[in-house]
């Protein structure tokens, strides 16, 4: 199992949605950290454990852009991502469900537009 810990692989303070809106954005996290690791996990057919604990906190836009963006911008499917990631969030358990919904919504939007 591969591991991604936000505070070690990205930053302690997460930022807004887009790079143009401020430092440590969800877009930056997706492009530089999340997408390469998720893609690697899908290619190698293993599970990536994403640990959200220990960070200062998360704005909803950051998480939506990072995880929903994998479907919108990086053309991954909900099923492919869902079967290759495991999210750890003991400090804010509700984030696991929120992230799942962000990805489902992004997939639905994508299906509608196709």
């Amino acid at each position, binding site marked *: 199992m591969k591991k991604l810990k936000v505070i070690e692989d990205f930053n*302690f303070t997460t930022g*807004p949605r887009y790079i143009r809106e*401020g430092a440590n954005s969800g877009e930056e996290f997706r492009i530089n950290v999340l997408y390469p690791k998720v893609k690697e996990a899908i290619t190698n057919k293993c599970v990536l454990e994403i640990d959200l604990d*220990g960070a200062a*906190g998360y704005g*909803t836009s950051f998480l939506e852009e990072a995880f929903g963006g994998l479907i919108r911008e990086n053309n991954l499917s909900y099923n492919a991502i869902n079967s290759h990631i495991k999210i750890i969030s003991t400090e804010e358990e509700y984030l696991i469900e929120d992230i799942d*919904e962000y990805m489902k919504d992004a997939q639905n939007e994508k299906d509608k537009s196709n």
Partner: protein
Amino acid sequence: MLDLKKRILRNKAFKILRRRRKKKKLNKKSTKKCLEFKRTVTCPRYIKRNAEFKSNIQKIKKGRFVIDGQTYDNKLTAPPVFSLLKNPEAVITFINMLNSNLKNRKSTFVDLFNVKFIEHDAIVLLLALMVLFKNKNIKFEGSKPNDNECRIKLQESGFFHYLYKGHSFPFNKSADNFIRESGKLTEGEKAQEVIDFATERIWKQRKLSKGVYKILMELMQNTHSHASTDEEGKHHWWLNVNYMNDKACFSFFDYGVGIFTSLKNKKNGSKFYNALDNLQKIFKSENNAENLKLILEGKLHKTSTNKSYRGKGLPGMKDTLDRNLISNLHVITNDSYANVVNNEYRTLKCSLKGTFLYWELTINNIVHDEKIKSN
């Protein structure tokens, strides 16, 4: 005869001596005035003026105000209870008049002399406007409150430090009040800075407050994206944190257009286009106070997108309250006032151009221990 002559000569000598002394005195005064003038260049008179100094020095001249030899287009008197939470209508009316002077570039004397009760929420509101006066080079002055407690509170708030940004008003880092002015970006480090300030005082060590962090990120992002109807990143936000009675009180403010004006101006194609009208049709709400309640409950998001709000925006802030991550949430935007904990929603007689949020962090709220800090 000789005595008389002597007396006359002596009187003359005295007269000359008196004249010389008078001249010397005048010279001394003018030098002092020059020095005072020099001082005003580096140290604004706003803070030097004290209560006694203010009385009997104002008169109206052709519709203008002459105060301490200076002429102003307008003089605005702050309400005696200068607190947005305790006296929202009077404070908003005062702030709106100040805003109008700013818009019309009217030089203004801000009279705080009769203020008997002052809160940090109103101080940061006033500060945000006075900084705009300063940045636009519009002449302004003011008087400090006559009330001793209020005067000390204003001084210790850091108001003058942030207004003049000079070394003459150093910020006391150990003070229990902290004001943060933003740039135009959403910055997590600035959010964490105020959380550290608050948790160090409440728990005597740094803690993670995920609720406060999330709220700050949402608010900064909203200011960037929605505070203006025509341009992203147009408005600044202001944040004040004050520690007192074992709790940290947060006041966040942006002089944007406010939530309802922003919603009314959503363009065709936006997911919130006509959202307010639809909300009113479905829930039969009659005013913005009722609309604000529906927005906080996530109804606006649900009717506009047919999806759950998933912690986003204002409903997400109410979630942090319901999850005990923060306490005592208040929202004031346009003509709506919400005391969320007490389920008190009311329509104000005046409208605030912008959005104001107040909440508290107390020892009873959920926080987490810091594990590692990468930078």
